[in-house]
């Protein structure tokens, strides 16, 4: 479903601030796989996700999604195939618009926008049905502005919006990092449920090793712009956070120094 080949990204090339973010990264995510991505700050995991989404243009390599080479496609064109949930709950929704209007926007990701009313009875009914899944009583607040919702509610709404329509690929960029632990768990469980129900191909970047191993069916770790290990199946099922750290130490000959990774 996602086919990244020999991706190279350098930021601020030709200036004193030049930094290599990704070196010759290749990764293939088959249809329906839920991949989790970990790595310390600056490891390149977010850059990789942004390269798939189209926010970052690689200087070498190609990205293909659902059989189309999307390397030259701008973000809005890729949106037909790929949807995203951001880390900041404020980013995924438009606070000046109502819940319903936000869903109408998301609906248009895979349906053409036109000069007809964006909101009709069918959108209203579909949206009410979708948000009822959350159990947050939002189905009775469809005409409320999204700005009135809490961070957790907004993130749950973002997630539902990202999974409306015919999107096949879901990118999650530390989408629970800004939430309190209880809300984070709620959003994470919701993610697991939706991804399983819709059989979405998903890539989740996370700061938490425990989360990375607990959810999904494959985990890769980024370090200094490359993938240092890739684990799935039974080996992954048996892996603990402590073993993961040992693995890292052995492979890299250095200690992992990012507290967030260890504590998460």
């Amino acid at each position: 479903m996602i086919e990244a080949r020999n991706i190279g990204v350098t930021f601020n090339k030709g200036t004193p601030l030049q930094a290599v973010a990704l070196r010759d990264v290749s990764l293939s995510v088959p249809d329906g796989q839920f991949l989790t991505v970990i790595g310390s700050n600056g490891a390149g995991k977010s850059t990789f996700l942004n390269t798939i989404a189209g926010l970052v243009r690689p200087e070498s390599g190609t990205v293909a999604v659902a059989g189309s080479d999307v390397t030259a496609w701008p973000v809005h064109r890729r949106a037909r195939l790929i949807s995203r949930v951001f880390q900041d709950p404020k980013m995924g929704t438009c606070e000046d618009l109502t819940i319903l209007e936000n869903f109408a926007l998301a609906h248009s990701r895979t349906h053409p926008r036109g000069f007809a009313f964006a909101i009709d009875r069918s959108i209203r009914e579909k949206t009410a049905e979708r948000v009822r899944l959350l159990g947050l009583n939002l189905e009775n607040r469809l005409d409320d502005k999204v700005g009135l919702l809490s961070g957790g509610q907004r993130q749950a709404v973002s997630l539902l919006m990202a999974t409306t329509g015919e999107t096949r690929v879901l990118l999650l960029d530390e989408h629970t990092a800004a939430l309190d632990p209880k809300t984070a768990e709620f959003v994470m469980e919701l993610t697991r449920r939706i991804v399983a129900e819709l059989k979405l191909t998903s890539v989740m970047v996370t700061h938490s090793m425990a989360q990375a191993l607990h959810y999904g069916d494959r985990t890769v770790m980024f370090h200094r712009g490359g993938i240092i290990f890739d684990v799935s199946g039974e080996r992954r099922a048996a892996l603990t956070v402590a073993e993961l750290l040992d693995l890292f130490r052995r492979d890299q000959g250095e200690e992992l120094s990012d507290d967030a990774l260890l504590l998460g």
Partner: protein
Amino acid sequence: MSLYELLGTVEVGLVFGLVSLGAYLTFKILDFPDLTVEGSFPLGAAVVATVIVALGWNPWVATLVAALAGFAAGWVTAYLNVRFNILHILAGILVSIALYSINLRIMGGPNKPLLGAETVFSGLDGWSLPSYVLSPILVFVLVLAIKFAIDFFLHTGIGLGMRAAGANPAMAEANGINVGRMKLFGIGLANALTALAGALFAQTFGAADAYMGIGIIIVGLASVIVGISLFPTRTIGQATVACLLGALLYRFAVALSLNADFLGLQASDVQLVTAILVVLTLMSQSSRLGLGRLLKRKPK
């Protein structure tokens, strides 16, 4: 203030209501402070006067041509910003400066009189009511129709996309909205409204003038600020009404302050009065209101 003056003020206020709606689209909906209007207002006037006088076209067609010219001007500003990343304010200044010369070229001089020429208001002669009563009514109907058209547009799929493109560009892109194209269309539309206002103003006033655009940006902004700080803006329909009422109120405030003899102001003080009115509105506004917050420095 006599009835004649009152109706005249209402008419001009309604014409500037179109500028106000344009400013609402750019400043509030698209979050794009657009200064092109300083050039597109006289552009509309210049085009309509020239097309009516020199080409002898139907005044309604000429007015439409003026609006299209305004759309093109706004489109160029947005293109400079979207394609070449020129700062929005600078792009607007560049286009409005260029338009100053273009307007002189179009008119073949600094002004173009319309006296005696057929205008959209000519058809009002010969009715039982005098034209100074009928022309505000004509403008009112026209402006109201445009207001409802904008309300409708902002509720369509594309209009919703435009609102998202202004409010949260990253989210809009992630939902498949071409933010650049929305800016091109939205800024074009706003300048079409402004040029239409210029065209109507020239036909009421009886001439087009290259200097007509000075301070138009502040007129539009002042109307929006006055409108949204005094009236409810929970829905788009309410917000556009607020913009129109703001334009009327602003016009009355200017007319009254210039008429008040004890203040000793003359017609040439209009820009000073405008600036002071805007400052007073911004000062009196509580910080929770959107546009006031946008235009004021954040308190430390």
